[in-house]
């Protein structure tokens, strides 16, 4: 259900958009320049997704759009009108964590935590991609893909998660956390 109304009578640079965020429909009137990330953080109060670079280079802003991971800093809010967005807040609740959230806790896969919401959303997307058999740059060239999440190993996870930088370099724990979660999600 798209609510898109582009341009106000007196101002073509403003639009009203309808975005389903974490299963709830939100209608927002935004300056067309507003990124999805800023819409989430400033308009909807969902501050889980973080702004690390605002240029697609760090992955801290990663959310799921129609189930696929994407950098919310490079999407404009107007572009996602009519789409489904899932943020870290929508993945699980404190009493009912998503398996990837649980695995990050169990493996102590963070230090300051700034990159963590993006890491977790990205891992959810990456596990789904692996589940669909998608190859990565380190998958042997003569195979069409991997055998679902069971085909993930540390080097596959490192490659697939390379769009998420961690300034604290918690990678040594992030990789096993993603592998744990992948096993649990497929089990």
């Amino acid at each position, binding site marked *: 259900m798209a609510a*898109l109304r*582009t*341009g106000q009578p007196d101002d*073509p*640079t403003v*639009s009203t958009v309808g975005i389903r965020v974490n299963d709830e429909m939100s209608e927002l009137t935004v*300056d*067309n*320049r507003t*990124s999805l990330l800023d819409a989430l953080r400033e308009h909807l109060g969902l501050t889980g997704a973080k702004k690390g670079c*605002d*240029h*697609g280079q760090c*992955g801290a802003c*990663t959310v799921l*759009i129609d189930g*696929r*991971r*994407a*950098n919310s800093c*490079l*999407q*404009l809010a*107007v*572009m996602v009108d009519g789409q489904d967005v899932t943020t870290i807040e929508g993945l699980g609740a404190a009493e009912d964590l998503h398996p990837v959230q649980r695995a990050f806790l169990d493996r102590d896969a963070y230090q300051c935590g700034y990159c963590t919401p993006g890491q977790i959303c*990205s891992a959810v*997307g*990456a596990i789904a*991609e692996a589940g*669909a*058999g*998608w*190859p*990565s*740059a380190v*998958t042997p*060239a003569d195979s*069409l*893909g991997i055998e679902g999440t069971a085909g993930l190993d540390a080097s596959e996870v*490192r*490659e*697939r*998660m*390379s*769009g*998420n930088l961690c300034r604290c370099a918690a990678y040594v724990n992030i990789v096993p956390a993603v592998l744990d979660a992948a096993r649990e999600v497929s089990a």
Partner: protein
Amino acid sequence: MKAFSYSRPDSVRDAVAGVAADREAKFLAGGTNLVDLMRLGVERPDALIDVRHLLGHDIEPTADGGLLVGSGVANSDLAVDPRVRQAYPVLSQALLSGASGQLRNAATVGGNLLQRTRCVYFQDVTKPCNKRQPGSGCPAREGSHRDLGILGTSEACIATHPSDMAVALAAVDATVHLTGPGGERTVRLEQLYRLPGDDPSRDTTLEHAELITAVQLPPPSALYRSSRYRKVRDRASFAFAVGSIAAAMVIDDGLVREVRIAFGAVAPRPWRAHTAEDALRGQPADAADFAAAIAAELELAEPLRDNAFKVDLTRRMGAAVLTELAEAQQQGSGR
């Protein structure tokens, strides 16, 4: 960022007409390059015409057995398509070596072809740049040019085209379908790009308001099946190429029957190495000949102080990839 209007037209015709009517309007697809450059102040459109929903999202077989890839297909979907992976491995490998998982999901085939250079002067509006601001000068020749071009460059501009996908598409003889105010046309991928000469502001031969609607891959063949992509970069993943090569080759009786070679990150466009290809066709398939043929191509190179290493890099990488392709075929036929 400059304020702009946003619209989502109902048809390709309306989208093209919308951009045609406004010199300052731009098409918007995945946004991963355009939004970035608008935030930097490099691109300053006053209207964005979103075409993502209008572009083809399918990869369809063509009458001759090739594939027609809609320009709205995500880079990730093209990379993992089993038909692409099998028949044009170089293309799948190039795509998977580019950007990150989340960027590939948003990035489209059309947008990937038209992404702009990553030259640091182009991206910094406080510096002169002939590409961004014609006539302002090019500080890269004297300044930071380690990542910039050695082939096809000009006095005015030494920027490189950053796409990995485009290099692979050049090697598999892809064509690009366009729709513009004047109707439809098809160009070879190589013809899509122009060399800078004294007007680096235009990267391509597209007219204003011409829309890329699809990319066509020729019928599968032993040549394209025997292909691969090699990318050298400053870190193991999620970095633009310092140099790259897309190659395809078939060998018959120890002789090179057919070969395609394209270099990436060394020129303003994917660089089809026609001189090297001509030198190799019909010649013995051995490592010394591979290196010599690529060296012949690189005789045109005009390296600068800090990017001369790209000449050696490209030659070695090229010889290594061709040698691997030759070995893989010898093993394959011995089975």
